């Protein structure tokens, strides 16, 4: 029984911390949003440090000894509020690329920091429920013709390729009949924008795009389980990011209320605020436990119920911790000039991403047959 990072993981975590402390802050984060080349340069540097490889096994050309490695990276990213497409490209799509033809080359490119991929699936949801979608595929010879529009594809703004889910059989809402295709972003039309948390996205339209059978990722009609597994993995990593953010917000807020005086005393002297901090700590530490368990589970037999439990815990805790961090910072907490408000937004997003609290409670109950007659 061990809930600590291995020496190697701790080193990775430290390297993330040190690098970001030097190369990344709120101003840089904002600047990179409008400066794609600079963002790409930073990304390549991160790739060289092995952070992308940390998400792939050695067999795939990466350096991961365990899923915990990427979790450690995500925790560091969460702490430092990194707005780069690690989660949506490396984690979410990296795993799916394994099923693509020529996967070794693709993954190698990704590990080198030269390939961004975005997942265009799950319709208008924030990436849950792959049985829903908006792209139809019509059989044409040995290939398919894709047509449809997704208004929000996370990470598509700077992606080179898209993993696009299309309906090849069955009806909307059925798990069977969803197929993934790898398409070049050059072949689709995009309108780029940013999400409220500063991460990039795009509206993606495909019109009569012909794709060959070699564009197919995974089995025909069988992508839903693959996408679900990829989302589960990404969900756990998003939990890692949130755990990192909470781990930053709590000591930062504690320091703020120790220093900020109102009514002639440090805010920290007010017992109500002390208990808010205690509750934030309770929320953060328990969420961390469940997130770690879900992360450890990624290396073994998939346990989607543990993932849903973790996502629920992390979502609820993250919202609470972020709310109190802002509240205790007062006006400073809502200002864009301070990172607190950006953490608040990102944690709000993570709470919704891959399914919100209610979604995961229901999924947990379904998976564990809670309340079902024997």
């Amino acid at each position, binding site marked *: 029984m061990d809930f600590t990072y291995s020496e190697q993981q701790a080193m990775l975590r430290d390297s993330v911390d040190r690098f970001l402390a030097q190369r990344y802050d709120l101003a840089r984060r904002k600047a990179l949003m409008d400066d794609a080349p600079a963002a790409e340069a930073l990304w390549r540097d991160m790739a060289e440090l092995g952070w992308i490889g940390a998400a792939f096994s050695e067999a795939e050309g990466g350096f991961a000894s365990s899923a915990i490695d990427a979790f450690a990276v995500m925790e560091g990213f969460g702490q430092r509020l990194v707005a780069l497409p690690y989660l949506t490209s490396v984690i979410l799509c990296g795993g799916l690329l394994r099923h693509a033809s020529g996967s070794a080359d693709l993954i190698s490119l990704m590990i080198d920091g030269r390939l961004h991929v975005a997942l265009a699936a799950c319709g208008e949801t924030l990436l849950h429920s792959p049985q*829903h979608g908006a792209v139809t595929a019509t059989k044409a010879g040995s290939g398919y013709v894709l047509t449809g529009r997704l208004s*929000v594809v996370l990470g598509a703004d700077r992606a080179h390729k898209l993993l696009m889910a299309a309906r090849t059989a069955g009806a909307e809402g059925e798990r069977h009949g969803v197929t993934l295709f790898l398409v070049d972003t050059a072949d689709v039309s995009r309108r780029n*924008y940013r999400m*409220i948390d500063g991460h990039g996205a795009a509206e993606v339209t495909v019109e009569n795009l012909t794709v060959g059978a070699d564009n197919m990722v995974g089995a025909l009609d069988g992508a839903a389980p693959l996408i679900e597994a990829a989302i589960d993995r990404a969900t756990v990593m998003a939990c890692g990011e949130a755990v990192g953010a909470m781990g930053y917000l709590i000591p930062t807020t504690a320091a703020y209320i120790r220093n900020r005086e109102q009514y002639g005393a440090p805010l920290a002297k007010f017992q109500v605020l002390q208990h808010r901090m205690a509750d934030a700590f309770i929320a953060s530490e328990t969420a961390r436990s469940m997130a770690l368990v879900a992360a450890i589970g990624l290396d073994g037999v998939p346990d989607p119920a543990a993932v849903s439990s973790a996502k629920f815990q992390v979502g609820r805790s993250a919202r609470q911790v972020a709310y109190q961090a802002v*509240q205790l910072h007062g006006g400073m907490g809502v200002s864009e000039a301070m990172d607190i408000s950006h953490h608040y937004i990102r944690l709000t997003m993570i709470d919704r991403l891959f399914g919100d609290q209610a979604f995961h409670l229901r999924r947990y109950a379904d998976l564990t047959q809670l309340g079902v007659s024997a």
Partner: protein
Amino acid sequence: MDLSIGPEAERLRDEFRAFFDKHLPKDLAAKWRAGAPVSKAEHQDWQRTLNRRGWLGTSWKKEWGGTGWGPLERFIYDEESSAAWAPRLNVPSIDLLGPVLIEFGTEAQKRRYLPPILNSDDWWCQGFSEPQAGSDLAALQMRAVRDGDHYVVSGTKLWTSWAQYANRMFALVRTSADGPKQAGISFLLIDMDQPGVTVSPILTMGGLHAVNEVRVDDVRVPVDNLVGKEGDAWTISKFLLSHERLVGAWIGPSLALMGLLRERLRKPGFDGRPIGADPILRAKAAEVESDLITLRHTAYRVLADELSGREPGPIVSVLKVRGSEIQQVLTDLLVQTGGAQAMVHPQTLTSAPGIAPAEAHLAQQFLDRRKLTIYGGSAEIQRNIIARQIVGV
């Protein structure tokens, strides 16, 4: 007991509805409803429309061009104005400074400042908070040093709402460092269109620009611009607070948001079923509506107390606490109805016809409401106030 507001008030309510229906520009209402930005000119146009009908100075005495209404009329007016999605007015001018000048101002001050408020030529902002004086106003440090017929004012105001639109500011300034902290604070009118006054935007969550930093460097302000006497600011502030009693409950705006939520819950969601078919979301929506109508009736209780001359007591803080929380819950639920589109940053959209305007500002509105439990007497301070009165320590 009796719930009716009486035939006179009911008639007035009908009048309001008819007027808003006819005179509020549809596109302006639609913008406000979507949470999209509204320009200063649009605000002014609308205020002037109201003023032509005589319904701008709703908390002003008739002799100064106001409506002469009591709290009931004002409350109904606010409810109907919100229900029609009329944009909020320049509150600091109309609901704060106006009544203050009428109560405490000199004849000259009234004649000079009240008419340009009503015709919307003047736009005022409220300079209260400072970097070291957030909740604790007594700690404020903007100095006003007497020099002949002028005060020389220096200092920084923070979180000043809509100062970017304002040409004037009423501010709390320190005219004396002696005695109890509160006694040295005065209420001063400052012309912002002069050198030495610098307005810098403060962007808040979601990229909104609603508040500012206002730096005042050695600006000379005529002594005539003092409202009341030196050290009167505390009394004036208390007068202001009593005016804000019911506004802080956000009843009208929340009822309007609830209408929006109800409408959105009827729409089909990502799985084709009505969004509100989800039993958990539905229960949450029912809960917040129940909370809202409950708070509305609590506000009516306060109103009934006011009308019959009873001191409502700590219930006023209840309105503020619950009113803020309900706004936060409502906008949170609205975001939940919007799926992925609700999380798009509207300011980064160029032209994306797929993202409906109805979704585009939901997250911004949610983020904007985050401040409600912080400013104007935080949720913690309101609870301190309640506890002081019921526990008595």
